[in-house]
């Protein structure tokens, strides 16, 4: 088990190198000169231009820029943004907010998805089940920005019962509506996965045995049906946390949440390799770690699964 974790962590090193190199190359390839863009329509004296180019290593060839960036990483120096602030500070500011948002979204979709899915699965074919199927279909079909703008307009602007935008505090209350919006799409998937899994397990032998043993209905449902139905759901949720971090960009834009999305977008338009690469790399690492956690959770849910 421990060896398995170590091996998985070691695998992240080549993924890290490959991903950063790739992203660095992509940012480098964005046409247009970022230093000229800093000047906008206004002139810039040659000395200032040369000075800025040297400061951000833009006078070096691509591979040198990349190696200098890697050299910094070893000492936890993620480079400097064009604002003159260390990228590390930007990471420390933006990520906690987005992680909070994504975690809330996962909780919301997990709790509501599992509860509704469980009830629908237990009452397969009944009215509640059919209603949930229709509801989840609608939620899957509507794009997230439509849900976002609608929620913002109705709840925030029209009825005034929820904050329209999120302030720098990014408190749980403020993030509630955005988290619901962000979690809405996956909620539908979790609901459907749970429902099918539960419906399938209802007729499984171990459930019949448990019922025959005289176990109470709640115990059969929670320990026997639900626990065994959770494996596909956990797989989905684990992979989901990573993509939610990325998907949060749209939601963050609508609700003006000062997280990863906006910062990354600005850095891309300004062509700032260190900022873009650092942000995306952290996203990749979160994705890898959450997948690792999912793999480890399997063993907890199903003792037959063991890692060498």
């Amino acid at each position: 088990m421990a060896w398995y974790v170590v091996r998985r962590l070691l695998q992240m090193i080549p993924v890290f190198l490959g991903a950063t190199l790739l992203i660095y190359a992509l940012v480098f390839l964005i046409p247009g000169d970022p230093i000229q863009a800093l000047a906008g329509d206004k002139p810039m004296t040659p000395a200032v231009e040369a000075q800025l180019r040297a400061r951000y290593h833009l006078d070096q060839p691509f591979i040198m820029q990349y190696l200098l960036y890697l050299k910094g990483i070893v000492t936890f120096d993620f480079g400097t943004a064009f604002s003159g602030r260390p990228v590390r500070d930007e990471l420390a500011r933006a990520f906690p907010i987005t992680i909070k948002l994504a975690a809330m979204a996962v909780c919301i979709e997990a709790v509501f998805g599992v509860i509704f899915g469980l009830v629908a699965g237990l009452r397969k074919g009944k009215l509640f089940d059919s209603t949930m199927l229709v509801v989840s279909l609608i939620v899957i079909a509507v794009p997230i920005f439509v849900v976002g703008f609608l929620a913002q307009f109705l709840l925030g602007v029209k009825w005034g019962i929820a904050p329209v935008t999120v302030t720098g505090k990014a408190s749980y209350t403020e993030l509630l509506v955005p988290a619901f919006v962000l979690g809405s799409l996956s909620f539908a998937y979790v609901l459907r996965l749970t429902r099918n899994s539960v419906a399938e397990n209802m007729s499984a032998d171990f459930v019949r045995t448990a019922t025959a043993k005289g176990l109470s209905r709640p115990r059969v449902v929670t320990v026997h049906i639900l626990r065994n139905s959770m494996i596909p759901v956990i797989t989905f949720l684990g992979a989901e946390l990573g993509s939610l971090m990325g998907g949060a960009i749209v939601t963050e834009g609508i609700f003006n949440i000062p997280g990863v999305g906006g910062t990354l977008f600005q850095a891309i338009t300004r062509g700032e390799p260190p900022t873009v690469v650092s942000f995306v790399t952290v996203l990749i690492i979160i994705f890898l770690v959450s997948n690792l956690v999912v793999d480890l959770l399997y063993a907890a849910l199903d003792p037959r699964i063991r890692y060498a």
Partner: protein
Amino acid sequence: MALTAAVLLATSLGLAACSSEDSADASIVTTNSGEPQNPLVPTNTNEFWGGRVVDRLFAGLKYYDANGKAHDEVAESIETTDRKNYRITIKPDWKFSDGTPVTAKSFVDAWNYGALGTNAQLQSYVFTEIVGFKDVSEAPPKAQTMSGLKVVDDRTFTVELVQPSIDFETALGYAPFYPLPEAAFKDIKAFGENPIGNGPYKFASNGAWQHNTQIDLVPNPEYKGGRPAKNKGLRFVMYQSFDTAYADLQAGNLDALDTIPDSALSSYKQDLGDRAITKPTAQNQKFGIQANVPHFAGEEGALRRKAISMAINREQICQNIFHGTRNPARDFTASTLPGFNGNLPGSEFLNHNPAEAKKLWAQADAISPWSGRFEIAYNSDGGHQAWIEAAANSIKNTLGIEAIATPYPTFKNIRDLVNAKTIGKAFRYGWQGDYPTMLQFLTSNYYSHSETNNVDWNNPEFDRLLNAALAAPTLEESHKLVGQAQSLMLQSMADIPVFDYVAAAGRSDKVKKAELAWNGLFDFENIEK
């Protein structure tokens, strides 16, 4: 399941803990902004998010009122006999918010800091006019300070310019000319995070700049100038989009929004009623055509540019596409600037006149027959597609040539090609006034030796008129000469001006008074709640 339950519990606890809202900020005016691109050092701030904050924190020798008129602020007198040598005396008893006095040295040190090449200040070019700038701006610099700046005593300093400039005096209200306190030079990085100024506002506290979120300012009790704050403080809230800001304005969470998003332009007047605000502003938009584009050199080029100008239906573009938030261009500057005259000789070439356009185009064809197609480059990241396509269409229909709008992905794409003079087609560009003078628009864009002369306009007579306007003893005479210079440009259609901007803004019902200034930004000091 245990994990989920634990997280859920944590979430609901958090909800309970964080549900109390503070309401102490009710008297502060909230206004839209974005994350400043650079630290808040006046000589390094060249974009509007940082600019609007810096202008609140500092007071220069002059300030501009809402109409763009320059008034003395820290300056007691600015004396010159030849428009080349200036003797500047500042008022006594001004202090920075850290208690240190504002002296002649505060100005001279700040300007020298801004000009020195190794400090890499984005606004360093504004000091080009001062004698000795060349030496400090070289790499490596030949001198650390500009020889044209001399401190006479605590309250007096002199400035020597390379050539006479009436514009210099007006420009003294522009951000790079603000003074800096001693503390700035000790650690400019820390200063940029928590600036200390002498303006009508100061930072509400250390760390009032919450990155990507907001900046809080409170009135500065030390301020002694002509634009004291009429509100209890300003909060610049950073929005990722104007759409979101507009939603906040409608919900009453935002007091003042200076840009109505495109998506609401057709409806904002109904949405906001008398809280909708419009005002023409000092920003224009035009097509440039460089002389190396085939058929656009010499006499033929002038005829073709005039024909194209007259083929464009500016009025229609302004009304149909922009819902009146643009005004048809009447010259190469902007209508809000002091001395503007909308009826210069030659401005008839800016009228929509298809018959005349065809005639001029035919005359050009007689010199050398038209071949190829007419392309207008625009950047697709800036919301320019609709009007560029409308203009291309108008040109196509009037002149019967193939005219198309060619998108480029980003603004800097086009800038690279324009600067390298390799774009090979017409391109859209604009100019936003840094300070309210027509001369800034003209010297920056059309002086034969200007680095930002995008269209290779080179006319000795024009340069002569511009020089004369710069050396004029009074503003009235200067404006007259500027008019003559612009007439000359209209005769050969140096550039094709299309429209000026009209700022469309809005305020919440909590705000009693909020007006826009000459630059399209709010007159922040005079917003009343």
